[in-house]
């Protein structure tokens, strides 16, 4: 392609030269014509000599090129997806032997959604399209809110990210990663049930917005704080679900790289959904060596070894972790507790790094804290990097204090090992066939009754989330500028192509008469607390 374009460019130059020759051979046709000719020629030469473009022009051209390339990629993709949906419907109706009248009804339903979908593509969403209900999360670059879409009264989680902070911290690739994988996880068969659904993404001058499915059960970190530890049965369920969730992500050619309890959400029926793909990297995303760089400063430290010798009782370690965990979850720095050692080094790594994280979570569920937790990040880092020496001792201490079955211990140790001998390296089936998962019905796992079912009093129940004080925004409330033509600047270049519409979001969108509750059909007996959750975890507390 590049060679082709270059040849075209050369060809154009040759044609210019030929025309010049033609020009000089022609006789003068009169005073008036001669004057006009000279003027044009002069102007042309002047243009040719002008090589310098202003910075604004170069940036505008770059933005234009990226936007147009993005547009055509998206255009052909969406046309193909539309055709795929139509063919899929026809095939399905044929398999089901529907009568012609029934087929007509189904076709009309699909047609209606397709029309609403292309309509939504030309409608500009803004922050003002949603009514804020409550903050349910806050991070370094922004916050997550429960919101209601004004046009259809549906509830969503809105993640709002500050562009200037992202650029300042070189985080633009991360936010792009998140949008890309969430968009990729939707296909002809609907959304991936293991991943939080993305419905819309858009931006304005200052912020990026991700409009996602609201997952009302909170996250696994909150549950672990509440229950301290899980039984092996409960752990088996959650680890099995996490394994299937990660497998579905790996099949998309993505690696999550940030699996930890606060990124495992619990839906209204108690099943797991994975969220937060900011560190996610895939075949089409540039690699981000952020974690290796962040922790590089700890490489040379050797003083930590003596400190490691200090024995720490389980209760002290337990209390220390409980004290730290919320602070760590909301800090910019985070913690390497769940990160595989190969990710902390500059060596290459692959999907297996996510299985290490699963092993850490499994240990935490059964023992009460992650294996390498310490009083400082530096100490944690060293324990992970020297896992061959530190882990055996940690496992011995854990076994002395907690009743670990041989299968549980073996699985943890097979997760927490070298990448190439790590369980899962040879495929997810390797994990699924481990004796710890004996009795797990992998195909029907999502229909299995979970150990914990959230008790929800309403669609806007946020009791499973921490409470956040509303901050007074210092920025003045800008008048609605959504309808003005705004020039693209270099500030916008990292965010070009961010806008996204999910086809399935069209189900009840934009004033459709058949508006349903955000939860769809609810099994109210399960959803509204007729069951004593604590009973199912009677053996959980030591």
């Amino acid at each position, binding site marked *: 392609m590049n060679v082709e374009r270059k040849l075209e460019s050369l060809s154009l130059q040759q044609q210019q030269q030929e025309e010049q020759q033609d020009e000089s051979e022609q006789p003068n046709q009169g005073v008036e014509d001669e004057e006009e000719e000279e003027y044009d020629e002069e102007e042309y030469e002047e243009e*040719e000599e002008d090589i310098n473009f202003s910075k604004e022009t170069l940036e*505008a051209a770059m933005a234009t090129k990226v936007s147009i390339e993005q547009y055509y990629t998206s255009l052909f993709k969406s*046309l193909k997806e539309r055709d795929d949906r139509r063919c899929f419907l026809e095939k399905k109706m044929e398999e089901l032997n529907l009568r012609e009248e029934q087929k007509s009804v189904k076709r009309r339903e699909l047609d209606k959604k397709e029309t609403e979908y292309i*309509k939504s593509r*030309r409608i500009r969403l803004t922050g003002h399209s949603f009514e804020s209900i409550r903050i349910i999360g806050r991070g370094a670059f922004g916050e997550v809110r429960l919101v209601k879409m004004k046009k259809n009264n549906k509830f969503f989680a809105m993640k709002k990210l500050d562009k200037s902070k992202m650029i300042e911290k070189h985080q633009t690739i991360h936010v792009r990663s998140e949008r890309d994988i969430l968009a990729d996880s939707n296909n002809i068969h609907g959304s991936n049930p293991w991943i939080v659904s993305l419905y819309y993404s858009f931006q304005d001058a200052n912020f990026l917005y991700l409009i996602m499915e609201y997952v009302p059960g909170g996250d696994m970190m909150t549950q672990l704080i509440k229950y301290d530890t899980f039984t092996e049965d409960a752990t088996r369920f959650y680890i099995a679900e996490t394994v299937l969730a990660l497998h579905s992500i790996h099949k998309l050619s993505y690696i999550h790289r940030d699996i930890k309890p606060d990124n495992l959400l619990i839906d209204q029926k108690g099943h797991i959904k994975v969220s937060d793909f900011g560190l996610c990297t895939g075949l089409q995303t540039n690699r981000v060596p952020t974690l290796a760089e962040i922790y590089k400063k700890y490489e040379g430290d050797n003083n930590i070894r003596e400190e490691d010798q200090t024995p720490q009782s389980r209760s002290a370690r337990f209390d220390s972790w409980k004290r730290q965990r919320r602070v760590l979850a909301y800090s910019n720095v985070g913690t390497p507790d769940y990160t595989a050692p190969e990710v902390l080094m500059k060596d290459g790594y692959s999907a297996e790094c996510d299985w290490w994280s699963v092993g850490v979570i499994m240990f935490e569920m059964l023992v009460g804290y992650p294996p390498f937790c310490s009083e400082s990040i530096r100490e944690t880092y060293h324990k992970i990097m020297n896992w061959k020496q530190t882990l055996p001792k940690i496992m011995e201490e854990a076994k002395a204090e907690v009743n670990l079955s041989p299968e549980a211990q073996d699985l943890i140790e097979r997760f927490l090992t070298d990448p190439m001998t790590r369980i899962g390296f040879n495929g997810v089936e390797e994990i699924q066939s481990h004796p710890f998962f004996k009795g797990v019905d992998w195909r029907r796992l999502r229909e299995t009754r979970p150990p914990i079912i959230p008790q929800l009093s309403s669609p806007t129940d946020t009791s499973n989330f921490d409470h956040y004080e509303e901050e007074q925004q210092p920025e003045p409330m800008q008048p609605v500028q959504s309808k003005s033509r705004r020039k693209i600047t270099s500030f916008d270049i990292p965010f070009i192509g961010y806008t996204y519409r999910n086809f399935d979001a069209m189900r009840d969108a934009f004033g459709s008469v058949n508006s349903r509750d955000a939860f769809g059909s609810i099994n109210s007996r399960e959803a509204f607390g007729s069951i004593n959750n604590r009973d199912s975890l009677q053996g959980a507390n030591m």
Partner: protein
Amino acid sequence: MFKIFNSDKNKTFKPKKGFSKGTKRHDLHKHAKATLGSGNLRLAVSLPEREDLNEWLAVNTVDFFNQINLLYGSITEFCTPKTCEVMSAGPKYEYLWADGESVKKPIKVSAPEYVEFLMTWVQGILDDENIFPSRVDVQFPKNFQSIVKNIFKRLFRVYGHIYYSHFTKIVSLGEEAHLNTCFKHFYFFIVEFNLVDKKEMLPLQDLIDNLTKSST
């Protein structure tokens, strides 16, 4: 309700007389060939099976408007009242601005002023919920297609101006393939739904012939 000014008496298209021949500066774009090669644009413009025609026209109008806005936005440094005293597509065609509302009688303005008027006018129509409705329970107006035709006719002039007056800058900025692809897509859409009269497209006829030789 928006009223489209329609009288022939004040038509804004004005062929310039007495022109004998183009010069090399004006003719460079006629040899343009490079495109992004991303897919079959002829098929991309077709109305999808059982899709609502007005909805398809609407979403594509918005897309083409955005593209032209981007392309023109990258050469505003060079399209000034001094360099482009009148909105022109080469020496033979000049355009006067009139929208039938705030400017009823066509006026002669510089190219950047014309484009600003035009883009603001189009944006106003796109934002008008009575013409381009965003809710599914609001119908398109009966004259929707004639409004779309008027938009396309005028957007075409921006391409005409860019190709005739600023093509070398587009090439230097590495945007030739992008410009050609967008224009080609725009042209195929126009032909598919008969949105612009042939005579309005004469300024770029050579370019069109050249770009549409290939099957995509």
